[in-house]
């Protein structure tokens, strides 16, 4: 019983503070999430700069090779994804944003493979992203439907329905962020449990679980986050536009 309790205390997948500092009398921490976020951002930035330098050297007639053709495939796939769900008119505006969050969330989710704690397993990372989506939804709602259309949508079947519609509007970012957060956190927790409790037997076969929890689940959740963002924005824009 004693060894059981000892093993259970080794289970460790929480956010850790690394460095404390003070701003206006508030004690704040630099946590593992910040470090992983910084590494993910650096990887994306270096990738972007390298591709930009390579692209600027290519002349219009050249055949794309290596990295450039890989990037072309990525961009084409992302454009297709946005085009198929947002339509011909809108997709130019949103392809950049969707591509950015796709790359960021995907790299964050699979950063568990690099030995980092995935940044998306911190609610402080997923909630701001859902807030951005929330702002985009309502900005576009007001932009395309005008105030009249927004009020008409609020009182959808009858005006008495308005409070329920408002609650469902505010439930969107919460469910969007909790879905991503809980999926990544559950993968992280299960892997931590396996490594802590089965540490003597955890040889090679956890790789299969890493494949499922980090790569498969991470990619699916990235796709779902982007698809839902696009679906909500398309709904807010309305069909006639």
């Amino acid at each position, binding site marked *: 019983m004693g060894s059981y309790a000892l093993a259970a205390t080794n*289970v460790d997948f929480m956010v850790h503070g690394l460095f404390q500092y003070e701003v206006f009398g508030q004690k704040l921490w630099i946590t593992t999430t910040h470090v992983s976020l910084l590494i993910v951002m650096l990887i994306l930035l270096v990738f972007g700069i390298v591709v930009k330098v390579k692209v600027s050297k290519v002349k219009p007639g050249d055949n794309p090779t290596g990295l450039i053709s890989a990037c072309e495939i990525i961009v084409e796939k992302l454009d297709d994804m946005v085009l198929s769900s947002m339509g011909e008119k809108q997709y130019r505006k949103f392809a950049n944003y969707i591509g950015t969050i796709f790359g960021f969330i995907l790299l964050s989710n699979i950063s568990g493979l690099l030995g980092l704690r995935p940044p998306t397993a911190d609610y402080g990372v997923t909630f701001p992203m859902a807030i951005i989506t929330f702002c985009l939804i309502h900005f576009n709602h007001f932009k395309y439907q005008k105030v009249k259309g927004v009020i008409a949508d609020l009182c959808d079947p009858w005006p008495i329905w308005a409070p329920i519609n408002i609650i469902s509007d505010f439930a969107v970012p919460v469910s969007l962020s909790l879905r991503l957060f809980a*999926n990544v956190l*559950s993968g992280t927790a299960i892997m931590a449990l396996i490594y802590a409790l089965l540490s003597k037997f955890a040889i090679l076969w956890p790789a299969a679980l890493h494949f499922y929890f980090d790569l498969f689940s991470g990619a699916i*959740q990235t796709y*779902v986050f982007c698809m839902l963002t696009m679906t909500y924005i398309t709904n807010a824009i309305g069909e006639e536009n």
Partner: protein
Amino acid sequence: MNQVTGVELIKACSAIGAGLAVIAGIGPGVGQGIAAGYAASAVGRNPGAQGAIRSTMLLGQAVAETTGLYGLLVAILLLFVQPLAR
């Protein structure tokens, strides 16, 4: 036998509560299975639309999964954060 303190009792009950909370996984399991079954029959009827069917199925399943994840979240909070035992 030592006497059980209040905090220990709360911790034990939190573990039971965590176990009960993940029963929420039944719902999404059934729902995702139904969605996958209908997707399979849709592919059987119209193999050309496989890509669209797959993406629709994944989206629906991910949305259906949310309720189960709420249960899981409650279980993780009860087990590892232990808000009640403070």
